[in-house]
């Protein structure tokens, strides 16, 4: 049983190498946290896995090569992601959002008819993320945390096997974080979950394993305790943060 296997992944923008030869293995059932200073290449790594940016190297999931496939084909292979800012369809209701997420394989005929009732997986996902009561509310009216849950719910109805979550708890209250954390724990029982996170408390509470990225490379890997003890990690987090922040701006301006 193989999960996510990344070998020698490399991404560059106009001469700037954002991901520089990353190797990464995430087993099924893992709840892996990716941490690292700004500009370390975390989001770019996820972009590469999901086909948003061109990359060299190899990304396999369940033994299948993903690099070179188009975004929607990668999605159909069971890989789902969220973004730093929650992207739900604000003008559609919670139910409509989940229904769309559940329906990528629907026939033309089904598509052209109206939805009758609530499909089973949608109802189940609404239950899991706790939004059943808000089924008919437009997603735009949800609170920030609820939107993130809706996004995770959308990944659940897609029945993805690999979830890539980009800062899912940013901006959440303490209670929301706890709820999100336990949601992730439940989900990761059956799927592979990778979380990009800056919030160290959140990481310490819920991570099963951690990879630290720095300047496009994997700096350290292991359990929370192992990583925290790594002197290289300490140096990066205490010493170079300011310089990396500048590099991040440089990428945007390139």
């Amino acid at each position, binding site marked *: 049983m193989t999960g996510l296997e990344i070998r020698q992944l490399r991404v560059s*923008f*106009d001469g700037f190498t954002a991901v520089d030869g990353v190797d990464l293995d995430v087993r099924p059932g893992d709840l892996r946290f990716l941490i690292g200073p700004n500009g370390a290449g975390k989001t770019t790594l996820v*972009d590469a896995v999901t086909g948003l940016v061109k990359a060299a190297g190899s990304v396999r999931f369940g033994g299948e090569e993903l690099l070179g496939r188009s975004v929607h084909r990668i999605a159909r292979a069971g890989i789902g992601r969220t973004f730093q800012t929650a992207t739900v369809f604000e003008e559609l209701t919670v139910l409509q959002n989940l229904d769309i997420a559940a329906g990528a394989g629907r026939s033309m005929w089904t598509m052209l008819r109206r939805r009758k009732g609530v499909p089973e997986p949608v109802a189940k996902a609404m239950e899991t993320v706790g939004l059943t009561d808000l089924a008919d509310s437009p997603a735009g009216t949800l609170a920030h945390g609820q939107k993130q849950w809706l996004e995770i719910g959308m990944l659940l109805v897609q029945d993805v096997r690999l979830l890539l979550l980009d800062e899912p708890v940013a901006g959440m209250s303490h209670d929301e974080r706890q709820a999100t954390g336990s949601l992730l724990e439940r989900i990761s029982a059956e799927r592979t979950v990778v979380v990009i996170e800056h919030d160290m408390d959140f990481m310490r509470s819920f991570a099963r394993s951690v990879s630290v990225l720095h300047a496009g490379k994997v700096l350290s890997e292991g359990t929370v305790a192992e990583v925290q003890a790594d002197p290289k990690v300490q140096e990066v987090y205490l010493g170079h943060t300011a310089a990396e922040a500048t590099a991040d701006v440089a990428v*945007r301006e*390139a």
Partner: protein
Amino acid sequence: MTVILGQTFTGISIGAVLLLIALGLSLTFGQMNVINMAHGEFIMAGAYTTYVLQKSISSAGISLLVALPVAFLVSGALGALLEWLLIRRLYLRPLDTLLVTWGVSLMLQQLARDLFGAPNVQTRAPDILTGNITLIGGDDPLTVANSRLFILGLAVAAVVALSLTLRLTPLGRRIRAVVQNRDLAEVSGISTSTVDRTAFFIGSGLAGVAGVALTLVGPIGPTMGTNVIIDAFLVIVVGGIGQLKGTVIVAFALGVLQSVLEYSTTVSVAKVLVLVGIVAFLQWRPQGLYTLRTRSLA
């Protein structure tokens, strides 16, 4: 041989006109993402400025030189006014600016008709600009029109001035900062609304300058703007939004292409071929010749 050279020069001169009419758009459309259909009417305003000035300044040469800065100010002021009245409400809806400024363009055309009469008006070009210089003499001479050389020079000067302004002045840095990250610029103490208005002023002002140049080669009338506006947008789109060098290269490339096709086919066919060619080109490079590649746009 003379034909090929001649058509290349013709193409370059067509390109110079294209460049001049599109240059202002490279700022308002390319940098600020505003699809200003009234840009053509700002060109018209520049042309009418020349006409009005000639009524009080009898020397065609002096009035033309005076018209350049005055038209810049007149069209620039119109642009800043438009920005303040309407466009600032529409930055989040770039496609709506197209329709709103279309309405503005209709009104400005009618205004020109009421102010200056429906028929085209005439300006006198300085005599030196109605002649030509001979590059290759002989039985089949190759000549280049002085008016075209003037426009070419003006276009090059405008491009240099604009790119220096964007690169070297504090204003230019502010414009680029706002274009790249509006929020960040705002929190860094840049007044984005002032920058927007100034950028719009400059972009529209350049349309005015183009209008002065057009009086040398074309008609001056209420609908002169609509004749050129789509070509101008196409130059920007093909060149790549926000890319001055793309605008320059594409203006000249389209000019040469047009002139060569016109020579070998007919004007109509050339026009159709150029348009279809542009559509095909955008299949190949959907973001234009040069693209801004950043993570934020990915």
